[in-house]
């Protein structure tokens, strides 16, 4: 067996593969975060809406998504869903970057379901008199939510949302199953090209953990800087 030699993955072509994978993983996570967060807020507000059908939509969405593994979501959006599209659009999509698009769709839907639950429990932590007071003063449900409830719930909601972001970061690795060239995929490519599995996986693990540590530090910084105020 070869000796452990990191130089092969710390410079040259294979290093570039891993770095491009790392950057793509970060892009996937950021794009997903930007789309999933507003979707999650909408779902959480729907869950507390005064109309039962709206609440039903939100509950169904969250339960249906959370109880299916991300891998099955990815397979569905990559292999299954394009079949529904009319042939011209389908062939157009296949000429473009369908892997990354499917991965982002799956990640957005999955992450939004988890984030919606975190936001909802944050909203519920605000005493309901706040909503009643807002409504009494003449604000509508949406305006009260936006101007009174959501800003107050931030302190409770942000820490679990940050740890959800950590999960999102780890979940981007699953995109490799549909051939997205993110970090895990590149690690495997480097391994099969060089038979240097240990080196390639060591560097990749370090990549995942370093971003995870940054996210964890961000969370503890936030909790120290903006502690939850008791009402």
């Amino acid at each position, binding site marked *: *067996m070869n000796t452990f030699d990191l130089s092969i993955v710390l410079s040259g072509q294979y290093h570039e593969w891993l770095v491009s994978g790392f950057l793509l993983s970060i892009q996937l996570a950021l794009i997903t975060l930007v789309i999933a967060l507003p979707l999650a807020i909408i779902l959480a507000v729907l869950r507390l809406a005064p109309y039962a059908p709206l609440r039903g939509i939100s509950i169904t969405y969250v*339960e*249906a998504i*959370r*109880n*299916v*593994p*991300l*891998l*099955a*979501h990815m*397979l*569905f959006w990559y*292999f*299954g*869903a394009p*079949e*529904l599209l009319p042939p011209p659009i389908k062939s157009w999509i296949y000429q473009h970057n369908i892997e990354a698009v499917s991965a982002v769709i799956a990640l957005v839907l999955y992450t939004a379901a988890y984030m919606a639950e975190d936001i909802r429990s944050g909203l519920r932590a605000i005493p309901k008199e706040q909503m009643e007071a807002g409504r009494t003063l003449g604000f509508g449900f949406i305006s009260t939510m936006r101007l009174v409830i959501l800003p107050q719930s931030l302190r409770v909601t942000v820490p679990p949302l940050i740890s959800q972001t*950590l999960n999102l970061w*780890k*979940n981007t*690795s*699953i995109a*490799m*199953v549909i051939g997205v060239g993110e970090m*895990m995929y590149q*690690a*495997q490519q480097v391994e099969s090209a060089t038979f240097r*599995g*240990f080196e390639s*996986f060591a560097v*990749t*693990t370090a990549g*995942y*953990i370093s971003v*995870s*540590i940054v996210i*964890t530090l961000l969370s503890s910084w936030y909790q120290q800087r903006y502690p939850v105020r008791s009402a």
Partner: protein
Amino acid sequence: MLDIIQTYGLYYLIGQYPNGPLGGLLMTLILAASALVLAFPVGVLLALCRISPFAILRVPVTGIVYVLRGTPLLMVIFWAYFLLPTLTGQRTDQFGTMLAALVIFDGVYLAEIIRAGILGLPRGQMESSRSLGFSYLSSMLLVILPQAFRNMLPSLVNQFVSTIKETSLGYIISLSEVSFVASQISAQLPTKPLQIYALLGLTYFVMCFSLSRFAYWLEKHLAVRSAKV
């Protein structure tokens, strides 16, 4: 969809068994159950180290827990895939690889659940048991853990749900669990990926949703009982 179930239903449920290796849905359940059962002692051990008064146990285990929680499961699977044959000196099959990865990964998450369960009990339990002459270890095993276990049950069922979802990653190392079997069926029926993957999603949903409802019921039921005591 019905004709797919009629033709491939049995293959989907149990793989090629009895004419070949076991697979499909049954494989998913066996894998998830054995991973959780084997991960439990690992979790207890890690939890005891994490709350231990000795820094020599606490610090390294806390480090391991943080590192593993910052790593994707896929990474752990790949490490198991490479490390196991090197460490044991013989080829490990996909089931063994996946099981090892899941036991380590779940052990870490279980450790946090168990730690919370132990810390959630009043200190008086440990103190009174120690003053009755039990050693630290026997108090833990006979007094603390059985009580903590009851409080942990809902979280354990939820962890089982997570484990079932995690077994789907066996797909990547060609372990013939239900996701992989679905992709095999899809390869034989190239015109019907939509139905097959929708069926796969539905299968997971039925299993996981009913289990998480059970966890929710358990939580309410146990809360009522402990309020009476």
